[in-house]
């Protein structure tokens, strides 16, 4: 059924390295128009790396990433800028420019990319602050906001150019359950009221199951499974069940390798002690 819809993001055979270490190993992923796709995984699974690649912040080893049919790495500079303007990103810690007020932060994309007069820009910024329920906070500095407010202000800034697509990095990380619930509701509201396509990276299970249309589970740089919430819950893949039930995994221990790790690799079987 989903295959009929338009693909907003298409990740194909993505391989990435950090130095010599392989981070993502042949990741394939599609995000369809109007859906919320949640990318899930434990820490070190490569989910943040995947997000950074989709936003065009890193260079990949091989594979392709298409946003609305176009590859940021292959576009000429001017077209790449235009494509970026159609994408909104809400960073984990907000990433508001700390030397500017909340209002100036939200107006920044408008001030840089449009020739609107300042009053119009202010009105547009206030409109977006209303959407994220932060009306009246435009005069404050980012350092004066709480963690949840920072994330919502970041959403307002991401929305100010009216993007069709939104990236969300860890919306509920570091927030109390009530505030994180509010953010989940905000994400659902953006999809339903504004018909936006949203990709969310998170490690919070409850949040993922609340907002997701589909979920992709990443583990050690590979996609384990992509499917609807029910499909994920009912899968018999052991690693996913461990993740869902918060079971820790015990690796089978090789005594020699364990000794090697402890001693920094200097132990040879024939060493004279």
């Amino acid at each position: 059924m989903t295959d009929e819809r338009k693909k907003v993001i298409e990740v194909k055979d993505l391989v990435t390295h950090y130095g010599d270490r392989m981070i993502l190993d042949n990741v394939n992923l599609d995000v369809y128009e109007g859906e919320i796709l949640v990318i899930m995984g434990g820490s070190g699974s490569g989910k943040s790396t995947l997000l950074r690649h989709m936003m065009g912040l890193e260079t990949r080893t091989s594979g392709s990433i298409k946003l609305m049919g176009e590859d940021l790495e292959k576009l000429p500079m001017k077209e790449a800028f235009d494509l970026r303007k159609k994408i909104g990103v809400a960073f984990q810690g907000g990433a508001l420019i700390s030397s500017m007020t909340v209002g100036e932060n939200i107006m920044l994309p408008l001030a840089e990319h449009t020739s609107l007069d300042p009053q119009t820009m202010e009105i547009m910024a206030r409109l977006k602050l209303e959407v994220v329920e932060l009306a009246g906070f435009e005069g404050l500095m980012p350092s004066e906001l709480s963690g949840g407010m920072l994330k919502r202000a970041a959403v307002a800034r991401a929305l100010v150019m009216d993007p069709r697509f939104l990236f969300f990095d860890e919306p509920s990380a570091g927030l109390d359950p009530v505030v994180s619930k509010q953010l989940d509701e905000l994400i659902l509201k953006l999809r339903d009221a504004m018909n936006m396509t949203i990709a969310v990276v998170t490690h919070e299970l409850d949040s993922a199951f609340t907002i997701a249309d589909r979920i992709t589970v990443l583990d050690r740089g590979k996609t384990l499974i992509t499917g609807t919430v029910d499909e994920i819950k009912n899968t018999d893949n052991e690693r996913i069940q461990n993740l869902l039930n918060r079971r820790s995994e015990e690796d089978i221990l090789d005594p020699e390798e364990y000794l090697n790790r402890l001693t920094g690799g200097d132990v040879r079987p024939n060493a004279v002690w």
Partner: protein
Amino acid sequence: MDETDEQKPNKAKAFVENVGHYAVSSVKEIGYGGSLLAESIFWVFAGPKLRQPVRLHQIAAQMMEVGIKAIPIVAIMSLTIGIMLAIQGIHSLRIFGAESQVTFGIALSVSREFASLITGILVAGRSGAAFAARLGTMTINQEVDALHVMAINPVRYLVVPTLLAMMIMIPLLTWMAELIMFLGAGLYVGAELGISLAAFFDQVINILSLDDVLHGLAKSFIFAILITIIGIGNGASVRGGAEGVGRVTTRAVVQSISAIIVTDMIFAFMVTR
């Protein structure tokens, strides 16, 4: 085999490896600085065409920050150095009974060396540190990433205004420092040898050629570029949180002061001989 015999070549190998790593990373850093400078020049000219213009108000704000606000400290230090030079000059020339010739030494050393060197070192400590700390903090808070995804090129937005402001303000500050050093020296020489201030300045103008003044100003222009690129380059390569910001800030100051002194010598060697 004996354990110590085996460790010796290992240590030597590690030492050679370290030297190699250090050399490679130094070359990398210099290369990075060069590409940062090249990219900045690119944005000055190509910015308007790509709808990424460098904003005049940002340059003005930076000129205020690096130039106007540095006037008090540069003025006080220049006055002090002027007096110090006069004291030392008279002291050493008195050996030959030639203290009336002190103006020669003061005029040439101030315009060719001291004005640009002292201004450079002061600005490196003041603004170079600030550039590194600002860029470092922005990188860690993902503010630089945020600029990227908002289709605002960070070099164009953060580096170019600072670089241009420095290239304008540091030669001006140097020129001011030069005049104030003459004032300080003139006051002391006047009190010690009974020459009027007007007569002292008259002597200075007679001694100096345009070449001497330009020698100092040209150097200060190079110092401006060095301080900016080293400060910002260090800030952008920050690793590891608040502690990392402290480390790159210290590095930026030490590196830019060293670069200033070495460049000063090379410049003097090439131009004076």
